[in-house]
């Protein structure tokens, strides 16, 4: 968030560029995956990039975000280093976490990316605790927790919403509703509506249905972040989005029978990362070069060694 209103076209370009970076990074991962140079389960964000891009844009540097194992998009949207990300995926010492984290635990505390847990919903209380610390220490930070619709079924999610609402803590809950938990649809899993349930805790909540529209998501998040910074109380944003790939791994799995391809086609018809061919053509070469450099960095980085095996344990 800046005091000067940015040129709308520049802003659009900037957000588009970040979204395209995420898309192209993950497409590179898909290309590399069969070679086994990335030996880490990847949960791709293709289709969901706009949520991370829009949510991260209004955040200030000292605002904190807690992510999930589907975390490449948030890492990059917060400004995490691309070389260190690729080296991390490759399991090299030049990785952001020396290769100990891999794809599922990307973090970049210097830019407020506070970690990603591979156990569903388990980072949500961390955001609430960080918000409690922000309150105790008077830091005026806003703390964001991003999670999927499946996480709302976990007990600790409810514990976290209740505590944040009860104590009035500066948390933005961001639910990326892609309608799937692994291979199960919402209808198979939930007897409630997430937005209603958040409101039951007294948390102002809203839903965005155009999950491909990073500008709309950024605007909505900006308004919510301003509200949180003003009154210090939690807000809830649900964004309908689309997971185009399998739960884990690089492939599409429309042939598996649990969902229909037509949903993908509907999504792609509106996805700016497919439809905005001018921007794609203009920005792709430099992004591709950036990814090439990151891949080369990862390949050249040494493996972690025995001395790293038992470091940072206690």
């Amino acid at each position, binding site marked *: 968030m800046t005091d000067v209103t940015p040129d709308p076209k520049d802003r659009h370009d900037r957000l588009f560029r970040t979204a395209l970076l995420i898309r192209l990074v993950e497409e590179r991962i898909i290309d590399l995956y069969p070679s086994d140079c990335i030996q880490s389960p990847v949960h791709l964000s293709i289709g969901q990039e706009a949520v991370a891009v829009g949510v991260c844009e209004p955040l200030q540097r000292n605002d*904190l975000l807690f992510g999930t194992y589907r975390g490449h998009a948030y890492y990059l949207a917060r400004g995490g280093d691309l070389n260190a990300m690729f080296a991390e995926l490759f399991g090299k010492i030049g990785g952001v976490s020396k290769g*100990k984290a891999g794809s599922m635990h990307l973090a970049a505390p210097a830019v407020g990316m506070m*970690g990603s847990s591979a156990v569903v919903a388990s980072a949500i*209380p*961390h955001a609430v605790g960080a*918000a409690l*610390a922000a309150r105790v220490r008077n830091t005026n930070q806003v703390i964001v927790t991003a999670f999927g619709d499946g996480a709302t079924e976990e007990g600790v999610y409810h514990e976290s919403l209740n505590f944040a609402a009860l104590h009035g803590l500066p948390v933005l809950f961001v639910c990326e509703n892609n309608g799937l938990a692994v291979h199960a649809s919402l209808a198979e899993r939930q007897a409630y509506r997430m937005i209603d349930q958040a409101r039951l805790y007294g948390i102002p909540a809203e839903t965005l249905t155009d999950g491909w529209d990073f500008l709309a998501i950024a605007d909505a998040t900006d308004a919510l972040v301003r509200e949180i910074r003003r009154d210090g109380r939690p807000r809830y944003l649900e964004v309908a989005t689309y997971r185009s790939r399998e739960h884990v791994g690089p492939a599409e799995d429309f042939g598996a029978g649990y969902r229909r391809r037509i949903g993908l086609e509907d999504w792609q018809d509106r996805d700016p990362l497919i439809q905005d061919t001018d921007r794609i053509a203009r920005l792709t070469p430099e992004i591709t070069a950036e990814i090439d450099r990151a891949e080369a960095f990862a390949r050249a980085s040494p493996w972690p060694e025995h001395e790293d095996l038992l470091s940072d344990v*206690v």
Partner: protein
Amino acid sequence: MDESPQAMTAASIQTYRDALFEAMEQALIRHDHTVIIGQGVTDHKGIFGTTIGLGERFGPRRVIETPLMEEGSLGICLGAALNGLYPINTHIRADFAFLAMNQMINLAAKYRYMFGGLFEVPMLVRLVIGRSWGQGAQHSQSPQSMFAHTPGLVVVMPSTPEAIRETYAYAIAHHRGPVISLEHRLMYELAFRSDPAPQSPSASQSGTPPFTSRLERRGRDVTIVATSIMVLEAKRAAERLAPHDIECEIIDLHCPSHPDRDLILDSVARTGKLLIADTSWLAYGVAAEVCRIVAGTAPHVLTAPVAMLGMQPAPCPTAKSLEDMFYPNLRDLMQAIVRLVTGGDNPAIDLPDERSMADFYKTFRGPF
């Protein structure tokens, strides 16, 4: 533990509970970033008297009552630690912390390592072992080995007020990771001498890191490695056996996650005999781990099979008659020592007919 409190002056004694209260109070006074978070921390019982009044004195931003949310509570502490606080998380029964196992094992224990050292999650988690007086299967467990099994956690079991003061002060001021402390409810009301007797070897140990084991008594005949209240039982047994020329060496394991291997091995090398007295089950637990240390390094120093005392291999029963059989008592311990040292029973040694260890330490009637 002193069996003759009338001999002590007020200035030289402190209860386990008062040491815990002092540690909590000092943490809030000395460190602005310390907060106490837990269910019951602001109520009139204040975690068995260890936080009473602190909420009023330090305010709701420092002493924070929680809903019933064990996993969320520990998760909130982890997040608070990531954003500059030192949280002290309380659970009035260690059993309840099983609801927080995901945060403890999957998150807190791994947050530093998993991210390659990018983060630190300094925090103290206080769990109370609620043994005896009909606590039954879900209010009495002693889960030190479950936590100590997982790399990344420091697990301590203070057996004296001195151990509480040293260990908690060090953890809060210096240690940058999660520390789990198992406090034994039976010890809360006990008065201890605050300065160790001159003959106690632990007096010379002040200055050693608090996350390790402690030599509590020197003796030539048998090494007793004990945890928590079993250290007090071992001392009672040792005092009663000394007149019979059985000299026990007692090691307070104190830190099950980081036992002092050299202290144990050096002692067993001198005595040749090892008895392990733990507050929990023997299988896959502290007893097994201490055996691993000896068997994996110097099995030849043992001159007899290792003896072990712990809970019977069943959930804890509620009925007093069964509970008394479930836990080892002083007679069981002394008999095991005598058999280990002399190779059999010794009719000349008068074993106590104490049926329940809890009856000796318990200074209250329920509820508890």
